[in-house]
């Protein structure tokens, strides 16, 4: 089966913005953005979640999604997927900010590094990359993967200059092909990241800003205050009292971006090595039934989110209406299941937490308390939750599922024996494996949807992923930014497109 795109019309999103703005080329103004995640690393290939915006001004991927959610080539010119072989043609004349060129060899080296490091789940099925021409690389897959191009539009597809790859301090000295360069001199570790226009960037129109400042403000209140006092123009928010306050503050707007994230718990130790009760699906179902999602989204998420019992929200192709209400709040049923499983007296386990999840987990703990399950909460450093979830430090974890990513990642993240968040290396039900393989073999969404719906249905029965609410991606913005049409958001992610932003005055 061959699936190919030939010569997609080249358009950056900045170019789209140019229609509404005078074509003044000189970069002007400072755009100040507040991240809630702390910067862990600026090495895109070692990046494991949270804080993509630190990388975006510097790095470009082979592909990207446009504001409509379509995949468009950026550093790539075109691609062709043929079974387990992906052939990518690079756009000619791409240079890094250090002046070196992006060659096919280097692109292959980059991709192989991503594959070897194994941090990025999106390239889990990739085997190796090699340069097969002066501007052509071939990526070989272990099995067909319809979302491989999607993966290459994220950090997996980000290209790092050859010199930077050799730099042991790559995590703080990023060198990419993007419109801006990182300025370590002006940045303050743990506080502020400063970016300035990259000299010689191929598209000066995309460099509308003289300076980008990204602040690291994990504290919700502090981020809100920074927004209120005008210290930042735009800030990421999760559903929190502070987000609710943004909505009510004159001069500020809460921007709800489509896509969103589904907050869920995941029982990692489902064979019961550490917490024997987790081996019993009835226990996990009981936990699922014990959570009052309506109350949760009203109270904990301040009405900013909707109850969820599956990864995808209504309107997305993988969404399954049949799962709606699958685990409607039913304490009696939950207690009965616990009784049945022989855990009427309950049990105890420890859950990792980061500050922004604290109140959610406390609420969950409160629900679980009702069925005598004691959930101890242990705070880990913001930015390390995903990493710690890949270890056997905790028998369960809690994460957010990004609605924009392909459902195949359910398998690569949670289900497969070597899934990212399956640190106990538990073999999945063969049927699940079968379904996920089937889902990869078909290219079009209509064909894949029933397969994934069945898979998600089975997962719901196993009940080790306990979905709670889906929240749109929230940004707090000053009125000026909210009405600035050059500020656009990458669908399904918590990052704006920095390329193309111009400040109104």
């Amino acid at each position, binding site marked *: 089966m061959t699936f190919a795109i030939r010569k997609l019309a080249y358009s950056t999103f900045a170019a789209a913005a140019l229609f509404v703005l005078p074509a003044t080329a000189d970069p002007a103004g400072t755009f100040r953005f507040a991240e809630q995640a*702390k910067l*862990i*690393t600026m090495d895109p290939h070692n990046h494991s979640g949270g804080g993509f915006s630190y990388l975006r001004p510097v790095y470009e991927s082979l592909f990207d999604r446009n504001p409509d959610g379509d995949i468009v080539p950026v550093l790539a010119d075109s691609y062709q997927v043929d079974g387990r072989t992906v052939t990518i043609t690079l756009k000619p004349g791409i240079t890094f900010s250090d002046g070196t060129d992006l060659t096919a060899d280097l692109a292959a080296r980059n991709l192989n590094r991503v594959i070897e490091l*194994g*941090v990025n789940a999106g390239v889990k099925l990739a085997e190796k990359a090699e340069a097969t021409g002066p501007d052509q690389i071939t990526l070989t897959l272990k099995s067909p993967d319809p979302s491989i191009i999607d993966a290459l539009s994220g950090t997996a597809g980000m290209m790092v200059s050859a010199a930077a790859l050799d730099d*042991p*301090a*790559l*995590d*703080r*000295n990023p060198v990419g092909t993007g419109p801006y360069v990182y300025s370590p001199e002006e940045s*303050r*570790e*743990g*506080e502020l990241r400063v970016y300035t226009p990259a000299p010689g960037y191929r598209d000066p129109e995309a460099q509308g800003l003289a300076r980008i400042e990204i602040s690291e*403000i994990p*504290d919700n*209140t*502090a981020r809100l*205050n*920074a927004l209120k*006092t005008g*210290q930042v123009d735009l800030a990421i928010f999760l559903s929190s009292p502070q987000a609710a306050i943004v909505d009510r503050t004159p001069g500020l707007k809460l921007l709800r971006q489509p896509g969103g994230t589904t907050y869920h718990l995941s029982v990692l130790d489902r064979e019961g090595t550490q917490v024997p009760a987790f081996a019993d699906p009835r226990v996990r179902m009981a936990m699922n039934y014990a959570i009052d999602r309506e109350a949760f989204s009203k109270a904990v998420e301040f009405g900013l989110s909707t109850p969820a019992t599956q990864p995808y929200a209504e309107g997305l192709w993988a969404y399954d209406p049949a799962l709606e209400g699958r685990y409607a709040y039913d304490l009696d049923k939950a207690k009965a299941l616990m009784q049945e499983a022989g855990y009427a007296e309950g049990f105890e386990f420890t859950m990792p937490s980061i500050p922004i999840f604290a109140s959610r987990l406390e609420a969950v703990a409160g629900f679980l308390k009702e069925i005598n399950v004691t959930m101890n909460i242990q*705070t*880990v*450093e913001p930015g*390390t939750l995903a*990493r710690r979830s*890949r*270890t*056997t430090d905790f028998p369960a974890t809690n994460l957010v599922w990004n609605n924009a990513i392909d459902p195949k990642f359910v398998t690569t993240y949670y289900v497969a024996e070597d899934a990212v968040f399956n*640190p106990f290396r538990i073999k999945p039900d063969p049927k699940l494996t079968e379904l996920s393989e089937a889902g990869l073999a078909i290219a079009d969404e209509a064909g894949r949807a029933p397969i994934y719906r069945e898979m998600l249905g089975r997962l719901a029965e196993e009940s080790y992923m306990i979905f709670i609410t889906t929240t749109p991606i929230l940004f707090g913005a000053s009125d000026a930014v909210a009405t600035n049409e050059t500020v656009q958001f990458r669908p399904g992610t918590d990052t704006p497109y920095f390329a193309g932003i111009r400040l109104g005055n």
Partner: protein
Amino acid sequence: MLRLIGQRLLAMVPLLLIVSVLTFSFTALLPSDPVDLIIGDRGSEEQYQMIRERLGLNEPFVTRYVTWLGQAVQGDLGTSFFNSVRVTDAVMLRMPATLSLTFASVLISVVVGLGAGVAAALRPRSWIDRLATVGATIGQAVPNFWFGLILASVFAVSLRWFPATGYVRLAEDPAGWLRSITLPALALGLSTSAAIARQVRSAMVGVLQQDYIRAARAQGLPARRVIFRHALKNALVPVVTVLSFQITVLLGGALIVEQVFAINGIGSLAVAAVRQQDIPMIQGIVLVLVLVVMAVQLATDVLYGLINPKARPA
């Protein structure tokens, strides 16, 4: 005086060495393997060994210690386990905020504490004494971070006189710095000013009973002069000792108050380093904090020598 400073500096060398051994060895007691934390459970044995090699963890303890110490005395405290940030840079970047906060609160404590203590001591059992004593007693019982929350809620959230969070660097905007540091410093300085007020009061009451005060008054020196010249200088002797100790306490308190006001100081760096078990970072922070404490102790020793002639080397 130079001799005093020299003596004190010399005395600090063994202490610093012990602190360095202590810091270095208790971080070696950390339960989890930092390499595991860095690579997760996914790393191959090869990667694991590679990282151990890079971090020098395969060397014997003493070798690691000597290497680390050798670099530390040159101002290089190593590199974080988790990114390529140099510990010295990270600590130095955060230090100004913490030190600003600490010293602003020292200033507040000394001014408030001295004033209240002297006022109380001059009229024992008067209303002002009672007020100061009650205030000082309560002040010592109030958690500084709670007081910070209250201050923030009243003066920042409701009245909007001061920013509720954040730290403005002195070099960037002195007025903004003052505004950003005022509430946290007040919160932090409260209990110390209470402690100092109590110390000043009891020292003053004690000194005022001394023969030399009676003698000075018997010479017909004006009461004000006796109090502010003769008594205060002697009363300051124990106060300086308390102050030296209190500055250490304040430095610790700053680590918590910083969190209330979302100030990027040593506090958040330390908490993050501990959560990540970032050994070089913890070692660096502890060592630098001890250096600060020692500098403070040296300064108070010098001050002590200035006001107490008996403490000067013969």
